[in-house]
Every structure is written in C-alpha cells, then in structure tokens.
C-alpha cells in the first residue's frame, strides 16, 4: 500500500513536471518571440529620426515639444525591452512593461481611428499620413493584441529556459 501511494505520488509529480515543462516551453517561445518583435520594431525606426518623429506627430496626441523625445526615444525603449527579453533578465517586469507599452499603442491607434485621421501606425518604421483607403487600423490593433497575449503569458508564467532569471534562480 505504501509503495502504491508512493507510485501514485511519483506519477502525480511526473505529471506536474511535464505540465511545468510545457508551460516553460511556451513561455520561452513567447519571450523570444516578443524579443524579436521589439527588436524588429525598434531597429526599423532608428535609421531615420525625422521619420520616427513624424510618425509620432501624425497621431496628433502629443504637443510639438514632446514629439521629438518620443520619436527618438520609443525605438530605444523597444530595443531595451528586446534585449531584456532576449537574455531573460527580469522577464516578468519586462513583460509587464511590454504589455503597458502595447496598451498605449493600441489606445493610440484606436484614438486616431476614432478621430478619422488617416495614418500608418508606424509600428515597424514608416508612419505618417496615408490615404484613407490605405489605413489598416483593425489589423494593427489585432496584431498588437496578439503581442499583448504573449506579454500577458509571461507576466503570469515568467519562468523560461535559457534565461538569466533562471541562472540567478529567482522566481
């Protein structure tokens, strides 16, 4: 009976471990996926600072004095998040900040849409005014919601493989 109990406990443990591995695997994929998204978004915006500033200006949300700091700074915020997620340092915090930034982006796109302004979101470079037939607000918002889900997963289950967090043994 004792051995039976032990076997059952062992089975449960193995089951738990297997489920843990699946969660960790998904988390790892989400972490690296989000890192690639931020790296791509950031790199696409740093080559032409004027274009990045204009992409921000086109939202007509910020006063002119803040257009340049945001246009110049946001790509580097994205790159910093990419770096942190890539090495897996402070995964939960980085994911939470990613989610916050994505919520800001989604809100901004929705606001532009609601005000009837025709722009490219400038999410991956480009940006600025486009003709009304070339707007893609719904796709842009759905895409960002997809990224938001990755960030949400990592906030809930931040443990991943090949991460600095793992090396430092903190969870």
């Amino acid at each position, binding site marked *: 009976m004792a051995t039976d109990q032990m076997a059952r406990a062992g089975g449960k443990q193995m089951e738990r471990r297997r489920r843990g591995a699946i969660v960790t695997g998904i988390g790892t994929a989400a972490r690296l996926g989000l890192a690639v998204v931020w790296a791509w978004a950031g790199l696409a915006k*740093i080559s*032409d*600072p*004027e*274009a*990045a*500033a*204009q992409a921000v*200006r*086109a939202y007509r949300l910020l006063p*002119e004095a803040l257009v*340049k*700091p945001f246009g*110049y*700074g946001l*790509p*580097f*915020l994205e*790159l*910093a*998040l990419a*770096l*942190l997620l890539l090495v897996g*340092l*402070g995964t939960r*915090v*980085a994911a939470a*900040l990613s989610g916050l930034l994505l919520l800001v982006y989604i809100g901004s796109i929705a606001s532009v849409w609601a005000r009837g302004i*025709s722009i*490219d979101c400038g999410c991956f*470079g*480009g*940006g*600025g*005014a*486009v*003709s009304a037939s070339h707007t893609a607000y719904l796709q842009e918002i759905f895409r960002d919601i997809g990224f938001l889900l990755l960030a949400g997963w990592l906030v809930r289950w931040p443990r991943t493989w090949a991460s600095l*967090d793992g090396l*430092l043994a*903190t969870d």
Partner: protein
Amino acid sequence: MSQKNSSEAKRTARERMQEERAAQEAKTKRLRKFGIIGTVLAVIVVAVVIGVLVQNSRTSSYDAATQAPAGTIGTNKLIIPVGSSAAPSTLTVYEDLRCPACGSYEKSFHTTVNQLMAQGKIHVNYHVVSFIDRNDNGSGSKNAANAVACAQNVGKFHGYHDVLYANQPDETDDAWADKSKLITLAKQVPGLDTPTFESCVNNNSFGAWVTAVQKDFDKSGYTSTPTILLNGTSAYPTYNGEQISTANLIKWVDAANKGKTPATISPSASAALVSPNASPSAG
C-alpha cells in the same frame, strides 16, 4: 523524561534555526528581486537617454545662410521660386519628385502653369518635399530633391524639374537611388550637366536643406502631395468646390487677378518660362 525534554528542546531549536534560515532566504530573494527590477529599469532608462541624445546629434542642424541653394526664398530659404515675383497670383506647390500623384498633376498642368507664368499672371513657390522614401523605402526622393537643389543653385531648377517629372519612375521603382540616372537626365537641360553639378548630386551637397524642407512640410499640417495652393487657398483637387482642370485653373487665376496688372516679362524670359529646356540659341 529529561531525554524527551531535551529532544523537544532540540527540535524547537532546529525549528527556530530553520525558520530563521527561511526568513533569511526570503530576504535575499526579495533583495535579488528588487535588484533585478532596478537593473531592468536602469537598462531601459540608460537606453532611452542614450538613444535620444544620439538621435538628436544625428539630426543635421540646418543653417539657412550657408546651406540653402542660391535664389531660394522664405524665412529659412526653403522655397524655390519660379516666374516673376511681380506676378499678382502665387501658386504654392508641395511636391515629392517620387510621388505618382505629383507626376500626374505635372503631366496635366505643367504646360498651363508655364504659360500662366510666361504671361506674368502667376509665380510658383515650390516646396520640394521628400517623404516617399519613408513610405516606400529607398533614397530616390531625397536624391532627386538634392539634385533639383543643385540645379536651383545654378539657376536651372525649372527646366530640370520638368525633365524629372517627364521621366518619373514608377513609385515602387526606386530608380533615382542611383544618382547616375539623375545626372543622365540632367543632360536634357542645356548647360546643367557640369562637373560641379555632378559632384553636387553625388555628394548630396544640399542634404541638410532637403531635410529642412521636409521637416517644414511635416509641421505644415498638410499631409499629402501634391498640395497646391492658389494665393493660399487649396486648389487641388478642388478650388472652392470646383474640380481642377486646365481651363478652370486659368479661370481661377484670371478671377483672382481681376483689377491687377500682370508682371511685365521680357519676350526672351517669357519664352524660357514656356519651354525652359529649349536651347538658348533659339531664344
């Protein structure tokens, strides 16, 4: 009894020690957690601050006194004027040399615009913007804008402008990324293709001015090209609700000029405005 007591005492001591160790562990864990959060925030702040500073230093400062092509006007010398400034009406044109809508505007209206200038009825203020490179990637807009600035610097903007629009590549074809194509087209403008012009095109000599013109357009609130204004009122695609056509453009200009005298333009200057690329011996 005493044995039992002592073992109990041992256990409580062990428990106490375990508790202390657990508390200690929790403490170091917490500290490490805060350390990580601090590191994350530090990485982000440092990256953003350095980024803003780097991008700030990368954006070329523009000095109107030394970096604008000769003959440009306006507060920061960002406008290229064509025609007699004494003409009563002003046509303001924001164009991107790579923009297909600008190409079709030029195709339909450049003859009429040139004639109106030759008659001394209008003068045109060109803003050569260059944002298509952002939308479609590439460098053709900026290269072409720099090249027309080089032409303006030697007084041959008008002819070269017309040649470039007549030979505009498809929007998605960034043909003018290759500066030699711009130089080849310059051969159609009598006297333009000189070693000075070629080095001006190849060295992007008016790059800072091109950026400044685009920045000015970014802040203008106009969002598309061509933006055409007749005496400050939008004239493209409609002017006060009326669709633009060559006949309507002439009609609008005449209405705006009512009671005003057209500029006096010498016959040779007039001929040059009508066909800016005719060989000078013919004039």
